[in-house]
């Protein structure tokens, strides 16, 4: 992870050189742990009136758009939404796929980067992992909204009815249910485990209701050798085990479509294509969250620095390229096959009334990320990455919109083709977005957003070492 700027061998004044490193790298800019604790606690406690204003507005929005509108839909039926024949699935499933996609970033950062010991992950693993849990909650909302008789949704649980009839495990939706449940539980536990030491830290620095709150959540953690060992073992297992779960979740989500005998959907590449798509939108969301956290929360400029944006930007570029590769792969195979219906579908995507969306998807998912992220300086700019992340998310939402309701227009019965026009689900979608932000805002005030102990561990492991005239960053493996 060494950021070697002096490839040309020009030696700078040593002192300023180190200063330069320190400015750039959180890991080389250590601070006493107590000070960092204070900063994190301070960030958690400092709440401006603006925060409450936004919070209140979002809460009202959640109450109206999510709960009230959903209630209306439950009472009146799905007729208030835009779903029809043949677009039986609409924005509900677009949002489900979208939120599950968002949730993938958390796991990617906290598991894959942990396994591969990408050190820059340290300050924002929690921020990312929170997205997993909160995103999955929104995905859950979206998928339950989608059901015609949501009050009977417990019939899908793996429990028998009074006649010993269990759910149908032939159905991709049953797989989905198991996979999403596994993923939600797994990622929540994985969020919680590394949080315990920080909760203990917060417990030690709070009083009043917060003290009780953290005391209960910290479970009595002190940091004894045994506790650390169990925790680290568990985290290791989680880091490895959650990765296949993550891959399976979005693969199974893609199978909801790929198992169907529909033109455009029946594709073997959908699994990895969806996983990459999920990471694409997820990483976009991570940079957005980091930019907001850095910009709005106290003391966060210390923890979250341009180097992090730079590193994530690089990942985003790679993921964007992979997404482009999978997209092209899917497109080419469908195109080359020459099936009558698939051809109509591809034509519909590009030349149909929603063709603009297809082109916007390519612009946002490929053209803009490639154009911006190749440049190290550009991808170190938080606001720019925020914008790119936003566009990627819009583009990825478009991608799911194209795959679901727009593709559903075209089937093998041209007599039934009809365009989907969203109804109440727009409100419900806004509701899930508001709820996601609301949960995030609440979390930012309730749990330490920065895993301080992990940052300290990282700072301990980093040092500068001179090789001849060159000073480089070295990392020692502490675990």
């Amino acid at each position, binding site marked *: 992870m060494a950021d070697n700027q002096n490839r040309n061998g020009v030696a700078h004044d040593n002192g300023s050189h180190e200063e330069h490193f320190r400015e750039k790298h959180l890991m080389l800019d250590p601070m006493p742990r107590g000070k960092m604790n204070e900063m994190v606690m301070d960030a958690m406690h400092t709440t401006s009136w603006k925060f409450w204003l936004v919070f209140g507005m979002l809460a009202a929005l959640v109450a109206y758009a999510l709960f009230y509108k959903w209630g209306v839909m439950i009472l009146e039926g799905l007729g208030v939404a835009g779903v029809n024949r043949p677009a039986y699935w609409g924005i509900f499933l677009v949002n489900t796929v979208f939120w599950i996609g968002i949730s993938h970033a958390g796991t990617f950062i906290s598991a894959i980067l942990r396994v591969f010991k990408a050190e820059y992950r340290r300050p924002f693993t929690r921020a990312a992992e929170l997205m997993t849990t909160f995103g999955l909650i929104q995905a859950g909302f979206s998928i339950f909204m989608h059901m015609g008789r949501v009050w009977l949704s417990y019939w899908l649980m793996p429990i028998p009815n009074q006649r010993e009839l*269990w759910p149908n*495990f032939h159905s991709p939706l049953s797989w989905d249910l*198991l996979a999403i*449940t*596994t993923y939600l539980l797994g990622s929540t*536990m*994985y969020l919680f485990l590394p949080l315990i030491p920080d909760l203990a830290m917060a417990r030690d620095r709070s009083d009043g209701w917060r003290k009780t709150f953290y005391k209960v959540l910290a479970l009595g953690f002190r940091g004894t050798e045994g506790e650390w060992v169990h925790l680290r073992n568990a985290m290791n*297992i989680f880091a490895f*085990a959650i990765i296949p779960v993550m891959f399976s979740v979005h693969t199974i989500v893609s199978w909801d479509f790929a198992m169907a005998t529909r033109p455009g959907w029946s594709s073997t590449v959908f699994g990895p294509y969806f996983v990459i798509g999920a990471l694409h939108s997820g990483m976009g969301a991570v940079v957005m969250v980091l930019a907001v956290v850095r910009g709005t929360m106290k003391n966060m400029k210390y923890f979250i620095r341009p180097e992090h944006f730079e590193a994530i930007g690089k990942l985003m570029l790679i993921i964007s390229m992979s997404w482009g590769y999978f997209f092209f792969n899917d497109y080419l195979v469908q195109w080359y096959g020459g099936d009558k219906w698939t051809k109509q579908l591809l034509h519909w995507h590009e030349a149909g009334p929603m063709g603009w969306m297809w082109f916007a998807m390519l612009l946002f998912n490929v053209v803009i990320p490639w154009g911006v992220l190749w440049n190290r300086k550009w991808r170190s700019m938080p606001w720019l990455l925020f914008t790119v992340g936003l566009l990627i998310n819009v583009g990825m939402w478009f991608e799911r919109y194209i795959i679901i309701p727009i593709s559903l227009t075209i089937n093998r019965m041209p007599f039934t083709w009809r365009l989907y026009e969203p109804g109440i689900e727009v409100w419900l979608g806004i509701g899930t977005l508001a709820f996601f932000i609301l949960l995030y805002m609440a979390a930012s005030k309730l749990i330490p957003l920065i895993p301080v102990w992990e940052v300290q*561990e990282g700072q301990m492991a980093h040092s500068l070492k001179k090789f001849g005239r060159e000073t480089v960053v070295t990392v020692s493996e502490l675990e």
Partner: protein
Amino acid sequence: MTAEEKSILAVFADIDPAADAIEQLRLLGVHDDCMNVISGIPVTEAMLGRPSQWTNVPRLALGGAIAGFLVGVFLSFITPDMYTILVGGQPFTPVPPAVIVVFEMTMLGMLLSTFLGVFLDSYFPSYRPMKYIPEISDGKIAILIECPPPDEQKVTDLLKKLGAESVQLTEAQHL
């Protein structure tokens, strides 16, 4: 060890003095079993020269995985036979979908038991009074001598000499 007993708690800022102190204490006759290290960051046993900690977490994880596997097998191979229904010309208990169910249940079993393993091994949650000082979460390393040491004063002096920031008698208190 009971909560009423007082123990010596020495707080160090760095790993090196703490490791030295542990070595010296051992020489003073404080048994490893009587010492416990409490730290704000995970300090490995090797760094402090402490014996390896035993953990059941991996075994529990394996056990959970096996249990989950069996649940998956039950769901995909046994439940369809309880009420046989033919769908889409597929067999009652097709293998490919079963792979998915078994995989997910295995992973769920493993993750759940790993998580529970931490709770079991660490006796979480525990809200009883415990010996602890809040400075630990400032990244300090504390050595807790839980058996009555052979010579309390001597130990205290030694610890102070070795660079302990503070040495005190603590009793268990609510965290």
